């Protein structure tokens, strides 16, 4: 029997394959059949020590669509953190008001620290460059619903694989599902060694590439990411690579018919607008799936499933 009641959701690494599949099952069920009374009387503490409008709205909407209420803050400047209060103390207080806390924080490990202060479950909505597990669940849900399975799929990660938090977490989760992984990035932004080590340990087949086009016909899922200018010390280096991975509709001739394109959003110019109208674009539905995944996580940690 899987038990999620009172559990903190901090890092995708802490979930077994069975647990991941269970979260996805609950999320799909909620997508098909809304449960507007499920969390009637419950309160979410929505604690954004770093602004992130999309993630915050997704968590807060999820709670409200299940009939719960929301308290919290969207901007660290309004909290006593500014006055030097520790994260531990802030969370200790808020956990007395709320039944579950969703939080984002600029520092890595902040969610785990918060979990030590709180008797109520903490859901990590991003701690610096470290983890953002609900994003990984929504990526997996999008893969599962478009491919009708998670096992034995070919997936290309494209763009900034070195710093991309969502890339690392999804890559770690895919180790459960015997994927074939293509890493497409400029050399200086390739997948970090520790992720490749995890692939090897899990016997995941992978390869590193610098060109996108030859990979396109091979994959079921194309996971695009943004390359950020601030990663480059030398602006000339950025200029060299910034347009190397711009996906356009014209490039999608000859791809597999089941191909779906995912992107954690926001995009800049790595997915051209003309891709949106192709049957392969799935990034907006992917973002919507965040809602069902977050509903599922609330329901699970509050003991409803």
């Amino acid at each position: 029997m899987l038990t999620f009641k009172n559990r903190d959701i901090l890092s995708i690494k802490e979930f077994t394959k069975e647990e991941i599949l269970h979260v996805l099952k609950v999320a799909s069920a909620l997508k098909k059949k809304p449960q507007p009374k499920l969390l009637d009387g419950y309160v979410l503490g929505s604690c954004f020590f770093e602004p992130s409008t999309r993630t915050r709205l997704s968590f807060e909407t999820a709670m409200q669509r299940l009939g719960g209420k929301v308290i919290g803050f969207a901007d660290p400047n309004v909290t006593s953190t500014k006055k030097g209060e520790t994260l531990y103390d802030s969370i200790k207080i808020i956990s007395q008001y709320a039944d579950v806390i969703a939080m984002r924080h600029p520092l890595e490990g902040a969610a785990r620290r918060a979990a030590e202060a709180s008797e109520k479950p903490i859901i990590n909505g991003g701690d610096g460059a470290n983890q953002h597990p609900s994003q990984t669940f929504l990526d997996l849900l999008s893969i599962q619903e478009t491919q009708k399975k998670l096992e034995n799929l070919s997936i290309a990660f494209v763009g900034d694989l070195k710093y991309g938090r969502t890339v690392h977490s999804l890559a770690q989760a895919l180790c459960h599902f015997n994927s074939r992984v293509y890493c497409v990035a400029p050399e200086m932004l390739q997948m970090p060694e520790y992720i490749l080590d995890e692939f090897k340990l899990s016997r995941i087949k992978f390869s590193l590439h610098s060109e996108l086009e030859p990979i396109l016909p091979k994959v079921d899922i194309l996971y695009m990411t943004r390359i950020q200018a601030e990663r480059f010390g030398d602006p000339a280096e950025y200029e060299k690579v910034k347009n190397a991975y711009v996906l356009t509709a014209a490039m999608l001739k000859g791809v597999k018919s089941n191909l779906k394109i995912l992107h954690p959003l926001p995009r800049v110019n790595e997915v051209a607008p003309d891709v949106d109208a192709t049957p392969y674009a799935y990034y907006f539905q992917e973002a919507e799936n965040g809602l069902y995944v977050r509903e599922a996580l609330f329901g699970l940690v509050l003991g409803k499933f």
Partner: protein
Amino acid sequence: MTPQELLVSAIKDGTVIDHITAGRALKIIRVLRLPDHKKVVTVGLNLPSRAMGHKDLIKVEGRELTPEEANEVALLAPEASINIIKNYKVTKKFKVQIPQTIERVVVCPNPKCITNFERMTTLFSVKRYGTVIKLSCKYCEKIFEQEEIKDYNL
């Protein structure tokens, strides 16, 4: 008396930490808070060693290292051996052992790690890859090689 004989000459009661990876003795002295020790502490740096080429050595008069302290030494000098001296004789001799977890002592090298901002205890789990030792921070989940650890909580 040559300088080397001076360094290895007997102490009455205390601890000799031998076979310290060359260059690590000063860090060990800080971690063990030896500057606050009221009795004699002798340090040898870059001593010739048959097995190691060069080694460091520390002698602490009037203090017996606890097993926890010996483990802290292991983190910095995995090859080190500890000799407990009583009345000029070695009464106990053992190799240090790397613990599975390290509480408090190590400062996380990740400048964005929460442990560097809150008053809290760090916790690392130790992973061995052959002779390479890596430390994984419980909080930021980053993995570090020993060389990357620069600061210690004293």
